[in-house]
């Protein structure tokens, strides 16, 4: 008897909980966008729970152009691709670099910005940043990124400490858990070097350009493989906001330089 009740309530619960949505029609009127919310100035959460940042503004601008109803979903960087694959959201606008490896699992839009990577550490700690100079030293980098791959291939004699997200690179560096960090040049500047914890730190050596937009790299918007209709829409929107000055407004709001990268 109780079995019947239990089974019945379970069945009811299973119907009540997921809402069988219509198949995502080609019109894409409702889009969910995965954002990191933990990567200032590209993406951060303010005390009242609102998202802001370069990535957020670009995503909103694209949605406005496509005339779609967009919801931003915050997601840990660690699980970004799996969440996209699991249809938690439809687009990733989280400063994700376009790489050959990632292209095996997802499709990308055109690149929407491109900036070099930079070494960051205590001022004057390394006069030269070469594999020889960093032999045996600990380099902090975000795991599963082209930067990590670059280090694994070129800095084999150094110890590489891989952290779960970009924000942790400067956090661990400030905590003294590594000798030098390898991160994104602009995120490192705006957030960390200007903060009280960043005094005594600076960018070291020359910026490193990894797979720029010209070579099919840069930073793009990821979506599930095969979503060609969506991809076209996003690319059209990107071209439009670049042409009509919306991009420039957003760019100038956060940065002194043009980061479009083409």
């Amino acid at each position, binding site marked *: 008897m109780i079995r019947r009740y239990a089974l019945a309530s379970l069945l009811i619960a299973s119907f009540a909980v997921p809402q069988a949505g219509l198949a995502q029609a080609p019109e894409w009127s409702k889009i969910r966008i995965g954002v990191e919310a933990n990567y200032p100035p590209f993406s951060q959460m303010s005390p009242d729970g609102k998202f802001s940042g370069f990535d957020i503004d670009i995503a909103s601008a694209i949605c406005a152009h496509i005339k779609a109803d967009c919801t931003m979903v915050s997601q840990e960087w*660690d*699980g*970004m*691709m*799996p969440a996209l*694959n699991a249809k938690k959201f439809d687009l990733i606008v989280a400063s994700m670099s376009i790489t050959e*490896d990632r292209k095996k*699992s997802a499709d990308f839009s055109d690149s929407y910005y491109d900036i070099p990577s930079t070494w960051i550490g205590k001022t004057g700690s390394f006069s030269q940043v070469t594999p020889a100079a960093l032999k045996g030293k600990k380099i902090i980098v975000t*795991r*599963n990124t082209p930067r990590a791959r670059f280090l694994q291939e070129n800095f084999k004699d150094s110890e590489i*400490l*891989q*952290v*779960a997200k970009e924000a942790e690179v400067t*956090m*661990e560096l*400030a*905590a*003294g*858990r590594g000798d030098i960090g390898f991160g994104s040049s602009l995120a490192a500047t705006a957030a960390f070097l200007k903060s009280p914890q960043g005094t005594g730190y600076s960018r070291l050596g020359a910026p490193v350009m990894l797979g720029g937009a010209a070579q099919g790299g840069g930073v793009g918007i990821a979506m599930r493989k095969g979503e060609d209709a969506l991809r076209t829409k996003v690319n059209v929107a990107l071209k439009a906001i670049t042409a009509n000055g919306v991009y420039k407004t957003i760019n100038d709001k956060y940065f002194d330089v043009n980061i479009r990268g083409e």
Partner: protein
Amino acid sequence: MDWQIIIDSLPQYAGGIRTTLVLLAISLASSLVLAVPLAVARVSPSWWLSRSVWLYTYVLRGTPLLVQLFIIYHGLAQFEAVRESAAWVLLKNAWFCAWLAFTLNSTAYTTEIFAGALKATPVGEIEAARAYGLGGFKLYSRVLLPGALRRALPQYSNEVIGLMHATAIASTVTLVDITRVARDVNANHLLVTESFGVAAVIYFVLTFSLVGVFRLLERRFLRHLRPQVDLPQAVPAAA
């Protein structure tokens, strides 16, 4: 099912298994060593002593291990004073932070388990021991603790297995254990079975090995509780 990816990632899993087992071993050793005196303090007639230990176990058991780990690893690093101090050499290291968090947490649970076992000591045993003039250290080391530790063995085995499962949380602070390897494989290849499935199989094997070890320990130390067999027949069985 992409076997090639599994085979390619096996060396990483081997490293992950090593990390998990080392972390488990060192946390277990330290928490066991700390829990015994703390359990004695917990059942002490002195109100202050007992309550202080109670406060420690209450706070450590009432908050999630994940949050405790974050406080030790990320939180302490926030303070300039901590970073300048002598302890920083240790706290800088992710291994030390993880070991500290797991030890503090596991000690709290183990202390309560041992304290419960001590409280369950048959009153007659203590009376007899006191009648023989045993007291203080001898009372505990010869009579109370051996009995209590034996009594606590089944529940303690649950705690050890729980600790082994908890080591998966170390994957959140840069330690490359089994779970971290699985998450990396999943992030790079987006294959859930090949990544988490393999991790699940490995954890399963580890869990059942631990269960087996504790069965052996119970057979040795709780022999007196097993049903007696091979009693001499009162009446010879009819052929």
